[in-house]
Protein backbone atom coordinates (compact mmCIF):
# COMPACT_ATOMS: atom_id res chain seq x y z
CA UNK A 1 0.00 0.00 0.00
CA UNK A 2 1.34 3.44 -0.81
CA UNK A 3 0.25 6.26 1.40
CA UNK A 4 0.69 9.46 -0.54
CA UNK A 5 -1.34 11.57 1.85
CA UNK A 6 1.45 12.20 4.32
CA UNK A 7 3.43 15.10 2.92
CA UNK A 8 6.48 14.47 5.08
CA UNK A 9 7.32 11.13 3.58
CA UNK A 10 5.84 11.43 0.12
CA UNK A 11 8.09 9.88 -2.44
CA UNK A 12 7.49 9.73 -6.11
CA UNK A 13 7.95 6.10 -6.73
CA UNK A 14 8.64 6.00 -10.36
CA UNK A 15 11.45 8.28 -11.47
CA UNK A 16 10.37 10.13 -14.60
CA UNK A 17 12.67 9.70 -17.52
CA UNK A 18 14.36 6.64 -16.11
CA UNK A 19 13.68 3.81 -18.51
CA UNK A 20 14.76 0.39 -17.32
CA UNK A 21 14.38 -2.54 -19.71
CA UNK A 22 12.07 -5.27 -18.45
CA UNK A 23 13.82 -8.29 -17.06
CA UNK A 24 17.00 -6.59 -15.94
CA UNK A 25 16.32 -7.44 -12.33
CA UNK A 26 17.39 -4.08 -11.01
CA UNK A 27 16.00 -3.39 -7.57
CA UNK A 28 15.82 0.01 -5.94
CA UNK A 29 14.34 0.67 -2.53
CA UNK A 30 13.11 4.14 -1.52
CA UNK A 31 11.72 5.20 1.82
CA UNK A 32 10.63 1.74 2.86
CA UNK A 33 8.74 1.42 6.15
CA UNK A 34 7.17 -1.77 7.47
CA UNK A 35 4.92 -2.59 10.40
CA UNK A 36 3.64 -5.62 12.24
CA UNK A 37 0.19 -4.39 13.25
CA UNK A 38 1.08 -1.13 14.99
CA UNK A 39 4.71 -1.91 15.77
CA UNK A 40 7.08 -0.31 13.29
CA UNK A 41 9.82 -2.70 12.29
CA UNK A 42 11.91 -0.76 9.76
CA UNK A 43 12.08 2.93 9.03
CA UNK A 44 12.83 4.84 5.85
CA UNK A 45 15.20 2.40 4.18
CA UNK A 46 16.65 3.48 0.83
CA UNK A 47 19.24 1.62 -1.17
CA UNK A 48 19.94 0.30 -4.66
CA UNK A 49 20.70 -3.37 -5.04
CA UNK A 50 23.28 -3.93 -7.77
CA UNK A 51 22.40 -6.55 -10.35
CA UNK A 52 24.26 -9.80 -10.82
CA UNK A 53 26.11 -9.35 -7.55
CA UNK A 54 25.76 -10.53 -4.00
CA UNK A 55 24.48 -8.00 -1.48
CA UNK A 56 24.67 -8.93 2.19
CA UNK A 57 22.36 -7.47 4.82
CA UNK A 58 24.16 -7.60 8.15
CA UNK A 59 23.44 -6.42 11.64
CA UNK A 60 22.59 -7.70 15.12
CA UNK A 61 19.44 -9.74 15.62
CA UNK A 62 16.16 -7.90 15.90
CA UNK A 63 17.12 -4.97 13.69
CA UNK A 64 14.72 -5.66 10.85
CA UNK A 65 16.94 -7.51 8.38
CA UNK A 66 14.46 -10.32 7.77
CA UNK A 67 11.57 -7.88 7.67
CA UNK A 68 13.40 -5.84 5.06
CA UNK A 69 14.18 -8.74 2.80
CA UNK A 70 10.63 -10.04 3.03
CA UNK A 71 9.41 -6.65 1.82
CA UNK A 72 11.41 -7.10 -1.35
CA UNK A 73 9.21 -9.87 -2.71
CA UNK A 74 5.97 -8.96 -1.02
CA UNK A 75 6.20 -11.74 1.54
CA UNK A 76 5.93 -9.33 4.46
CA UNK A 77 2.25 -8.81 3.81
CA UNK A 78 1.75 -12.56 4.14
CA UNK A 79 2.78 -12.37 7.79
CA UNK A 80 0.10 -11.67 10.32
CA UNK A 81 -0.50 -7.94 10.49
CA UNK A 82 2.22 -7.13 7.96
CA UNK A 83 2.01 -3.70 6.36
CA UNK A 84 4.35 -1.85 4.04
CA UNK A 85 4.74 1.77 2.96
CA UNK A 86 7.29 3.13 0.55
CA UNK A 87 8.61 2.06 -2.81
CA UNK A 88 10.40 -0.98 -4.05
CA UNK A 89 11.19 -0.51 -7.73
CA UNK A 90 11.80 -3.56 -9.86
CA UNK A 91 13.03 -2.45 -13.28
CA UNK A 92 11.72 1.00 -12.53
CA UNK A 93 8.20 -0.15 -11.63
CA UNK A 94 6.92 -0.11 -8.08
CA UNK A 95 5.98 -3.61 -6.96
CA UNK A 96 3.57 -2.21 -4.38
CA UNK A 97 1.51 -0.33 -6.95
CA UNK A 98 -2.16 -1.06 -6.81
CA UNK A 99 -2.41 -2.96 -10.06
CA UNK A 100 0.60 -5.21 -9.50
CA UNK A 101 0.04 -8.91 -8.93
CA UNK A 102 2.09 -10.11 -5.94
CA UNK A 103 2.20 -13.63 -7.35
CA UNK A 104 3.95 -12.34 -10.49
CA UNK A 105 6.46 -10.45 -8.34
CA UNK A 106 7.27 -13.55 -6.33
CA UNK A 107 8.01 -15.44 -9.52
CA UNK A 108 10.56 -12.85 -10.50
CA UNK A 109 12.01 -12.51 -7.02
CA UNK A 110 12.51 -15.88 -5.41
CA UNK A 111 13.20 -16.62 -1.77
CA UNK A 112 14.97 -19.29 0.26
CA UNK A 113 14.24 -19.40 3.95
CA UNK A 114 16.28 -20.09 7.04
CA UNK A 115 14.78 -23.47 7.77
CA UNK A 116 15.12 -25.86 4.81
CA UNK A 117 11.53 -26.51 3.82
CA UNK A 118 11.16 -29.21 1.18
CA UNK A 119 7.53 -30.18 0.80
CA UNK A 120 7.35 -33.41 2.79
CA UNK A 121 4.67 -35.15 0.78
CA UNK A 122 6.55 -34.72 -2.50
CA UNK A 123 9.51 -36.50 -4.04
CA UNK A 124 12.70 -34.62 -4.90
CA UNK A 125 11.58 -34.35 -8.51
CA UNK A 126 8.15 -33.06 -7.55
CA UNK A 127 9.70 -30.61 -5.11
CA UNK A 128 11.93 -28.98 -7.70
CA UNK A 129 9.15 -28.86 -10.26
CA UNK A 130 6.51 -27.68 -7.77
CA UNK A 131 6.73 -24.04 -8.82
CA UNK A 132 6.05 -25.03 -12.41
CA UNK A 133 3.47 -27.75 -11.88
CA UNK A 134 1.36 -25.64 -9.58
CA UNK A 135 1.01 -22.90 -12.15
CA UNK A 136 0.42 -25.05 -15.20
CA UNK A 137 3.28 -23.34 -17.00
CA UNK A 138 4.70 -26.62 -18.27
CA UNK A 139 3.06 -28.92 -20.73
CA UNK A 140 5.08 -32.11 -21.02
CA UNK A 141 6.94 -34.45 -18.72
CA UNK A 142 10.22 -34.23 -20.62
CA UNK A 143 10.19 -30.44 -20.37
CA UNK A 144 9.84 -30.79 -16.62
CA UNK A 145 12.66 -33.31 -16.52
CA UNK A 146 14.94 -30.92 -18.38
CA UNK A 147 14.16 -28.07 -16.03
CA UNK A 148 14.56 -30.23 -12.93
CA UNK A 149 17.95 -31.48 -14.07
CA UNK A 150 19.12 -27.99 -14.96
CA UNK A 151 18.00 -26.55 -11.62
CA UNK A 152 19.59 -29.36 -9.64
CA UNK A 153 22.86 -28.94 -11.56
CA UNK A 154 22.82 -25.22 -10.87
CA UNK A 155 22.29 -25.98 -7.20
CA UNK A 156 25.22 -28.43 -7.24
CA UNK A 157 22.91 -31.19 -6.12
CA UNK A 158 22.35 -33.22 -9.31
CA UNK A 159 25.12 -35.76 -8.80
CA UNK A 160 23.99 -36.52 -5.30
CA UNK A 161 20.33 -37.09 -6.07
CA UNK A 162 20.11 -38.09 -9.73
CA UNK A 163 19.51 -41.72 -8.81
CA UNK A 164 16.89 -41.03 -6.21
CA UNK A 165 14.67 -38.37 -7.69
CA UNK A 166 11.62 -40.34 -6.64
CA UNK A 167 12.50 -40.37 -2.97
CA UNK A 168 10.97 -37.98 -0.50
CA UNK A 169 12.60 -34.58 -0.12
CA UNK A 170 12.92 -35.10 3.63
CA UNK A 171 15.30 -38.03 3.17
CA UNK A 172 18.18 -35.64 2.45
CA UNK A 173 20.58 -34.06 4.91
CA UNK A 174 20.04 -30.47 6.05
CA UNK A 175 22.54 -29.00 3.62
CA UNK A 176 21.13 -31.04 0.74
CA UNK A 177 17.62 -29.98 1.66
CA UNK A 178 18.63 -26.34 1.54
CA UNK A 179 20.23 -26.83 -1.86
CA UNK A 180 17.01 -28.55 -2.91
CA UNK A 181 15.10 -25.45 -1.86
CA UNK A 182 17.53 -23.31 -3.86
CA UNK A 183 17.00 -25.55 -6.89
CA UNK A 184 13.26 -25.28 -6.38
CA UNK A 185 13.48 -21.49 -6.28
CA UNK A 186 15.60 -21.43 -9.43
CA UNK A 187 13.32 -23.73 -11.39
CA UNK A 188 10.85 -20.88 -11.94
CA UNK A 189 13.71 -18.76 -13.34
CA UNK A 190 13.59 -15.66 -11.19
CA UNK A 191 15.78 -12.63 -11.80
CA UNK A 192 16.59 -12.06 -8.16
CA UNK A 193 17.09 -14.59 -5.37
CA UNK A 194 16.64 -13.58 -1.74
CA UNK A 195 18.16 -15.75 0.97
CA UNK A 196 17.13 -15.23 4.57
CA UNK A 197 19.95 -16.62 6.72
CA UNK A 198 20.16 -19.75 4.57
CA UNK A 199 23.03 -21.35 6.46
CA UNK A 200 22.15 -20.68 10.07
CA UNK A 201 20.55 -24.10 10.47
CA UNK A 202 23.44 -25.94 8.76
CA UNK A 203 26.81 -27.32 9.77
CA UNK A 204 30.02 -25.57 8.61
CA UNK A 205 30.71 -28.01 5.77
CA UNK A 206 27.25 -27.55 4.29
CA UNK A 207 27.57 -23.79 4.83
CA UNK A 208 30.73 -23.63 2.74
CA UNK A 209 29.07 -25.59 -0.06
CA UNK A 210 26.22 -23.12 -0.15
CA UNK A 211 28.58 -20.15 -0.13
CA UNK A 212 30.41 -21.63 -3.14
CA UNK A 213 27.07 -22.15 -4.79
CA UNK A 214 26.09 -18.53 -4.24
CA UNK A 215 29.30 -17.23 -5.79
CA UNK A 216 28.63 -19.35 -8.88
CA UNK A 217 25.04 -18.19 -9.07
CA UNK A 218 26.00 -14.52 -8.86
CA UNK A 219 27.09 -14.65 -12.50
CA UNK A 220 23.49 -15.10 -13.57
CA UNK A 221 21.29 -13.90 -10.71
CA UNK A 222 21.09 -10.92 -8.41
CA UNK A 223 21.46 -12.24 -4.89
CA UNK A 224 20.52 -10.64 -1.60
CA UNK A 225 21.45 -12.54 1.53
CA UNK A 226 20.61 -11.78 5.13
CA UNK A 227 23.23 -13.07 7.50
CA UNK A 228 24.13 -12.54 11.11
CA UNK A 229 27.52 -14.13 10.43
CA UNK A 230 29.92 -11.30 9.60
CA UNK A 231 32.63 -13.60 8.35
CA UNK A 232 30.20 -15.12 5.89
CA UNK A 233 29.28 -11.65 4.65
CA UNK A 234 32.94 -10.79 4.24
CA UNK A 235 33.63 -14.05 2.37
CA UNK A 236 30.75 -14.02 0.02
CA UNK A 237 29.32 -10.60 -0.72
CA UNK A 238 30.20 -7.74 -3.06
CA UNK A 239 28.09 -5.09 -1.32
CA UNK A 240 27.00 -4.95 2.29
CA UNK A 241 24.25 -3.05 4.10
CA UNK A 242 24.50 -2.61 7.85
CA UNK A 243 21.22 -2.41 9.75
CA UNK A 244 20.78 -1.38 13.36
CA UNK A 245 17.89 -0.81 15.71
CA UNK A 246 17.28 2.88 16.34
CA UNK A 247 16.45 4.33 19.76
CA UNK A 248 12.77 3.66 19.14
CA UNK A 249 13.61 0.06 18.30
CA UNK A 250 12.84 0.32 14.60
CA UNK A 251 15.46 -0.90 12.18
CA UNK A 252 17.35 1.65 10.13
CA UNK A 253 20.07 1.48 7.52
CA UNK A 254 23.33 2.80 8.89
CA UNK A 255 25.70 2.25 6.02
CA UNK A 256 25.71 0.66 2.59
CA UNK A 257 28.74 0.15 0.41
CA UNK A 258 31.22 -2.27 -1.10
CA UNK A 259 31.98 -5.07 1.34
CA UNK A 260 35.71 -4.54 1.34
CA UNK A 261 35.27 -0.88 2.14
CA UNK A 262 32.64 -1.49 4.83
CA UNK A 263 34.84 -3.96 6.62
CA UNK A 264 38.20 -2.20 6.38
CA UNK A 265 37.20 1.45 6.38
CA UNK A 266 33.63 1.94 7.62
CA UNK A 267 32.30 5.49 7.47
CA UNK A 268 30.04 5.27 10.53
CA UNK A 269 31.31 4.62 14.03
CA UNK A 270 28.43 2.27 14.78
CA UNK A 271 29.43 0.13 11.80
CA UNK A 272 32.97 0.02 13.05
CA UNK A 273 31.83 -1.01 16.53
CA UNK A 274 29.77 -3.84 15.11
CA UNK A 275 32.48 -5.05 12.74
CA UNK A 276 35.08 -5.10 15.46
CA UNK A 277 32.79 -6.97 17.75
CA UNK A 278 32.16 -4.32 20.36
CA UNK A 279 28.52 -5.36 20.32
CA UNK A 280 26.14 -7.67 18.50
Amino acid at each position, binding site marked *: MIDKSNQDTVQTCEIPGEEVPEGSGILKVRGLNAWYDSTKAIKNISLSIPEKAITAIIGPSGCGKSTFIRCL*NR*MHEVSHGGRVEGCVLLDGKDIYARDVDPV*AIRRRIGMVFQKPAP*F*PTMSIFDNVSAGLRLTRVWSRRWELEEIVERSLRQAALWDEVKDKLGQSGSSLSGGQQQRL*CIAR*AMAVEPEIILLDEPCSALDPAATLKIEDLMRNLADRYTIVIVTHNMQQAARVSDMAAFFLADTDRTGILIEFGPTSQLFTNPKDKRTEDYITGRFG
Partner: protein
Amino acid sequence: MADTGYGRRKLINRTMLSLCAIAAGLSIIVLALILGYTLVQGISSLDIDFLMQAAKPMGEAGGGMRDEIFGTLILVTLGTLISLPVGLMAGIFVAEFAGPRIATAVQFSADILAGVPSIVVGVFAYAVLVRPMHSYSALSAGVALAVIMIPIVARTAEESLRLVPNFQREAALALGITRWRAIIGVIIPGALTGIVTGVMLGVARIAGETAPLIFTALGSQFGVQGLLKPIGALPLQIYRYAMSPDPDWHKQAWAAAFLLMLLVLGISILVRVVSRRRSI
Protein backbone atom coordinates in the same frame (compact mmCIF):
# COMPACT_ATOMS: atom_id res chain seq x y z
CA MET B 1 9.39 -40.94 61.19
CA ALA B 2 10.40 -40.78 57.56
CA ASP B 3 9.95 -44.56 57.27
CA THR B 4 6.27 -44.67 58.23
CA GLY B 5 5.61 -41.73 55.87
CA TYR B 6 7.25 -43.59 52.99
CA GLY B 7 5.53 -46.86 53.75
CA ARG B 8 2.15 -45.17 53.74
CA ARG B 9 2.91 -43.42 50.48
CA LYS B 10 3.88 -46.69 48.88
CA LEU B 11 0.59 -48.25 49.95
CA ILE B 12 -1.49 -45.35 48.61
CA ASN B 13 0.58 -45.41 45.41
CA ARG B 14 -0.07 -49.09 44.87
CA THR B 15 -3.78 -48.76 45.61
CA MET B 16 -4.28 -45.87 43.22
CA LEU B 17 -2.27 -47.57 40.46
CA SER B 18 -4.37 -50.69 40.85
CA LEU B 19 -7.58 -48.67 40.66
CA CYS B 20 -6.36 -46.98 37.47
CA ALA B 21 -5.41 -50.32 35.96
CA ILE B 22 -8.81 -51.77 36.85
CA ALA B 23 -10.56 -48.78 35.26
CA ALA B 24 -8.51 -49.19 32.09
CA GLY B 25 -9.21 -52.89 32.09
CA LEU B 26 -12.93 -52.24 32.49
CA SER B 27 -13.08 -50.22 29.30
CA ILE B 28 -11.40 -53.00 27.38
CA ILE B 29 -13.62 -55.61 29.03
CA VAL B 30 -16.78 -53.71 28.13
CA LEU B 31 -15.73 -53.52 24.50
CA ALA B 32 -14.80 -57.19 24.52
CA LEU B 33 -18.16 -58.06 26.04
CA ILE B 34 -20.10 -56.14 23.42
CA LEU B 35 -18.08 -57.60 20.58
CA GLY B 36 -18.18 -61.08 22.07
CA TYR B 37 -21.89 -61.06 22.79
CA THR B 38 -22.92 -59.78 19.37
CA LEU B 39 -20.50 -62.23 17.81
CA VAL B 40 -21.85 -65.21 19.68
CA GLN B 41 -25.48 -64.26 19.14
CA GLY B 42 -25.15 -63.08 15.61
CA ILE B 43 -22.62 -65.21 13.85
CA SER B 44 -24.84 -68.21 13.52
CA SER B 45 -27.39 -66.19 11.57
CA LEU B 46 -24.85 -64.25 9.52
CA ASP B 47 -24.80 -66.36 6.39
CA ILE B 48 -25.08 -65.90 2.67
CA ASP B 49 -28.85 -65.88 2.86
CA PHE B 50 -28.73 -63.02 5.30
CA LEU B 51 -26.62 -60.96 2.94
CA MET B 52 -28.39 -61.82 -0.26
CA GLN B 53 -32.09 -62.17 0.46
CA ALA B 54 -34.76 -59.61 1.01
CA ALA B 55 -36.76 -59.56 4.23
CA LYS B 56 -39.58 -62.02 4.58
CA PRO B 57 -42.87 -61.30 6.35
CA MET B 58 -43.08 -61.94 10.08
CA GLY B 59 -43.56 -65.55 10.87
CA GLU B 60 -41.97 -66.87 7.71
CA ALA B 61 -38.61 -68.48 8.28
CA GLY B 62 -35.52 -67.31 6.47
CA GLY B 63 -35.04 -64.09 4.63
CA GLY B 64 -32.23 -61.64 4.96
CA MET B 65 -31.35 -58.00 5.07
CA ARG B 66 -29.95 -57.44 1.63
CA ASP B 67 -31.99 -54.30 1.00
CA GLU B 68 -31.16 -52.87 4.40
CA ILE B 69 -27.45 -53.44 3.87
CA PHE B 70 -27.74 -51.65 0.57
CA GLY B 71 -29.75 -48.98 2.28
CA THR B 72 -27.09 -48.32 4.88
CA LEU B 73 -24.42 -48.18 2.19
CA ILE B 74 -26.49 -45.77 0.10
CA LEU B 75 -27.27 -43.50 3.03
CA VAL B 76 -23.66 -43.44 4.24
CA THR B 77 -22.46 -42.63 0.72
CA LEU B 78 -25.04 -39.90 0.35
CA GLY B 79 -24.16 -38.41 3.71
CA THR B 80 -20.45 -38.47 2.88
CA LEU B 81 -20.96 -36.97 -0.58
CA ILE B 82 -22.77 -34.01 0.93
CA SER B 83 -20.68 -33.49 4.06
CA LEU B 84 -17.23 -33.99 2.52
CA PRO B 85 -17.11 -30.90 0.29
CA VAL B 86 -19.00 -28.75 2.77
CA GLY B 87 -16.93 -29.82 5.78
CA LEU B 88 -13.63 -29.69 3.91
CA MET B 89 -14.23 -26.23 2.49
CA ALA B 90 -15.40 -24.96 5.87
CA GLY B 91 -12.22 -26.34 7.41
CA ILE B 92 -10.09 -24.70 4.73
CA PHE B 93 -11.86 -21.39 5.24
CA VAL B 94 -11.32 -21.37 9.00
CA ALA B 95 -7.73 -22.60 8.87
CA GLU B 96 -6.46 -20.51 5.97
CA PHE B 97 -8.58 -17.45 5.43
CA ALA B 98 -10.77 -16.47 8.35
CA GLY B 99 -9.83 -13.75 10.80
CA PRO B 100 -9.75 -14.73 14.47
CA ARG B 101 -13.28 -13.61 15.27
CA ILE B 102 -14.97 -15.34 12.35
CA ALA B 103 -12.85 -18.42 12.98
CA THR B 104 -14.00 -18.58 16.59
CA ALA B 105 -17.62 -18.13 15.55
CA VAL B 106 -17.44 -20.94 12.99
CA GLN B 107 -15.62 -23.27 15.36
CA PHE B 108 -18.13 -22.59 18.07
CA SER B 109 -21.05 -23.26 15.73
CA ALA B 110 -19.47 -26.48 14.52
CA ASP B 111 -18.93 -27.68 18.07
CA ILE B 112 -22.53 -26.93 19.01
CA LEU B 113 -23.79 -28.62 15.86
CA ALA B 114 -21.74 -31.68 16.75
CA GLY B 115 -23.51 -31.80 20.09
CA VAL B 116 -27.06 -31.56 18.75
CA PRO B 117 -28.89 -34.80 19.58
CA SER B 118 -29.28 -36.86 16.46
CA ILE B 119 -33.00 -37.20 16.98
CA VAL B 120 -33.30 -33.43 16.81
CA VAL B 121 -31.42 -33.50 13.52
CA GLY B 122 -33.94 -36.09 12.35
CA VAL B 123 -36.90 -33.95 13.33
CA PHE B 124 -35.28 -30.98 11.61
CA ALA B 125 -34.83 -32.94 8.38
CA TYR B 126 -38.42 -34.10 8.69
CA ALA B 127 -39.71 -30.56 8.91
CA VAL B 128 -37.46 -29.19 6.20
CA LEU B 129 -37.45 -32.00 3.66
CA VAL B 130 -39.95 -34.76 4.37
CA ARG B 131 -42.98 -32.54 4.91
CA PRO B 132 -42.50 -30.30 1.84
CA MET B 133 -41.67 -33.32 -0.31
CA HIS B 134 -44.70 -35.19 1.07
CA SER B 135 -42.62 -38.30 1.26
CA TYR B 136 -40.06 -40.03 3.38
CA SER B 137 -36.93 -40.41 1.31
CA ALA B 138 -33.36 -41.62 1.20
CA LEU B 139 -32.38 -38.10 0.21
CA SER B 140 -33.71 -36.53 3.40
CA ALA B 141 -31.96 -39.23 5.43
CA GLY B 142 -28.72 -38.55 3.58
CA VAL B 143 -29.05 -34.86 4.36
CA ALA B 144 -29.75 -35.57 8.03
CA LEU B 145 -26.69 -37.80 8.27
CA ALA B 146 -24.63 -35.17 6.44
CA VAL B 147 -25.65 -32.57 9.01
CA ILE B 148 -24.31 -34.87 11.73
CA MET B 149 -21.10 -35.56 9.81
CA ILE B 150 -20.25 -32.02 8.67
CA PRO B 151 -18.90 -30.72 12.00
CA ILE B 152 -16.72 -33.83 12.41
CA VAL B 153 -15.16 -33.40 8.96
CA ALA B 154 -14.85 -29.62 9.33
CA ARG B 155 -13.14 -29.71 12.71
CA THR B 156 -10.68 -32.48 11.87
CA ALA B 157 -9.90 -30.86 8.51
CA GLU B 158 -9.31 -27.51 10.17
CA GLU B 159 -7.06 -28.98 12.85
CA SER B 160 -5.08 -31.03 10.36
CA LEU B 161 -4.57 -27.99 8.16
CA ARG B 162 -3.40 -25.96 11.14
CA LEU B 163 -0.84 -28.64 11.90
CA VAL B 164 0.90 -27.98 8.58
CA PRO B 165 3.77 -25.69 9.64
CA ASN B 166 3.63 -22.10 8.50
CA PHE B 167 7.05 -22.14 6.89
CA GLN B 168 5.73 -24.57 4.30
CA ARG B 169 2.95 -22.16 3.41
CA GLU B 170 5.48 -19.37 3.01
CA ALA B 171 7.84 -21.57 1.00
CA ALA B 172 4.98 -22.37 -1.37
CA LEU B 173 3.89 -18.74 -1.75
CA ALA B 174 7.49 -17.60 -2.28
CA LEU B 175 7.60 -19.74 -5.41
CA GLY B 176 5.10 -17.42 -7.00
CA ILE B 177 2.06 -19.70 -6.98
CA THR B 178 -1.39 -18.46 -6.18
CA ARG B 179 -2.87 -18.97 -2.75
CA TRP B 180 -5.47 -21.53 -3.69
CA ARG B 181 -2.95 -23.54 -5.71
CA ALA B 182 -0.66 -23.52 -2.70
CA ILE B 183 -3.51 -24.83 -0.56
CA ILE B 184 -4.54 -27.57 -2.97
CA GLY B 185 -1.08 -28.58 -4.12
CA VAL B 186 0.98 -28.32 -0.94
CA ILE B 187 -1.03 -27.77 2.20
CA ILE B 188 -3.90 -30.20 1.73
CA PRO B 189 -1.58 -33.08 0.76
CA GLY B 190 0.33 -32.30 3.94
CA ALA B 191 -2.89 -32.53 5.95
CA LEU B 192 -4.37 -35.43 3.99
CA THR B 193 -3.88 -38.08 6.66
CA GLY B 194 -5.81 -36.04 9.19
CA ILE B 195 -8.57 -35.19 6.74
CA VAL B 196 -9.02 -38.83 5.73
CA THR B 197 -9.12 -39.81 9.40
CA GLY B 198 -11.84 -37.24 10.02
CA VAL B 199 -13.92 -38.54 7.13
CA MET B 200 -13.60 -42.13 8.29
CA LEU B 201 -14.55 -41.23 11.85
CA GLY B 202 -17.57 -39.41 10.46
CA VAL B 203 -18.56 -42.45 8.41
CA ALA B 204 -18.24 -44.73 11.42
CA ARG B 205 -20.49 -42.39 13.37
CA ILE B 206 -23.28 -42.02 10.86
CA ALA B 207 -23.32 -45.69 9.88
CA GLY B 208 -24.86 -46.49 13.22
CA GLU B 209 -27.21 -43.54 13.64
CA THR B 210 -30.80 -44.64 14.06
CA ALA B 211 -32.87 -41.76 15.42
CA PRO B 212 -32.59 -39.46 12.40
CA LEU B 213 -33.53 -42.33 10.11
CA ILE B 214 -36.83 -42.86 11.91
CA PHE B 215 -38.06 -39.50 10.67
CA THR B 216 -36.52 -39.49 7.26
CA ALA B 217 -35.83 -42.88 5.79
CA LEU B 218 -38.61 -44.63 7.64
CA GLY B 219 -37.70 -48.07 6.36
CA SER B 220 -39.09 -49.80 3.34
CA GLN B 221 -40.91 -53.04 2.81
CA PHE B 222 -40.35 -52.93 -0.91
CA GLY B 223 -36.57 -52.77 -1.07
CA VAL B 224 -34.61 -49.93 -2.48
CA GLN B 225 -37.01 -47.80 -4.50
CA GLY B 226 -34.84 -44.86 -5.39
CA LEU B 227 -33.53 -41.81 -3.65
CA LEU B 228 -36.84 -40.03 -3.35
CA LYS B 229 -38.65 -42.92 -1.68
CA PRO B 230 -38.35 -44.44 1.79
CA ILE B 231 -35.43 -46.75 2.29
CA GLY B 232 -34.45 -49.34 4.84
CA ALA B 233 -31.22 -49.33 6.81
CA LEU B 234 -29.50 -51.70 9.22
CA PRO B 235 -30.04 -49.72 12.42
CA LEU B 236 -33.73 -49.26 11.62
CA GLN B 237 -34.16 -52.92 10.92
CA ILE B 238 -32.38 -53.91 14.12
CA TYR B 239 -34.81 -51.75 16.06
CA ARG B 240 -37.82 -53.16 14.28
CA TYR B 241 -36.75 -56.78 14.50
CA ALA B 242 -35.63 -56.60 18.13
CA MET B 243 -38.96 -55.13 19.21
CA SER B 244 -40.94 -57.81 17.46
CA PRO B 245 -42.16 -61.08 19.05
CA ASP B 246 -40.62 -63.24 16.32
CA PRO B 247 -37.59 -65.23 17.57
CA ASP B 248 -36.34 -65.66 14.02
CA TRP B 249 -36.33 -61.92 13.65
CA HIS B 250 -34.45 -61.63 16.95
CA LYS B 251 -31.69 -63.79 15.57
CA GLN B 252 -31.51 -61.69 12.45
CA ALA B 253 -31.36 -58.56 14.55
CA TRP B 254 -28.31 -59.95 16.32
CA ALA B 255 -26.71 -60.75 13.01
CA ALA B 256 -27.37 -57.22 11.81
CA ALA B 257 -25.95 -55.81 15.04
CA PHE B 258 -22.83 -57.91 14.57
CA LEU B 259 -22.49 -56.73 10.98
CA LEU B 260 -22.78 -53.12 12.06
CA MET B 261 -20.15 -53.66 14.77
CA LEU B 262 -17.84 -55.21 12.19
CA LEU B 263 -18.31 -52.19 9.96
CA VAL B 264 -17.51 -49.69 12.69
CA LEU B 265 -14.62 -51.82 14.00
CA GLY B 266 -13.21 -52.19 10.51
CA ILE B 267 -13.28 -48.45 9.91
CA SER B 268 -11.66 -47.71 13.27
CA ILE B 269 -8.83 -50.15 12.57
CA LEU B 270 -8.38 -48.64 9.12
CA VAL B 271 -8.12 -45.18 10.69
CA ARG B 272 -5.32 -46.41 12.95
CA VAL B 273 -3.46 -48.04 10.08
CA VAL B 274 -3.72 -44.95 7.86
CA SER B 275 -2.61 -42.48 10.52
CA ARG B 276 0.30 -44.64 11.57
CA ARG B 277 1.66 -45.07 8.07
CA ARG B 278 1.91 -41.38 7.25
CA SER B 279 3.13 -39.98 10.54
CA ILE B 280 5.34 -37.26 9.08
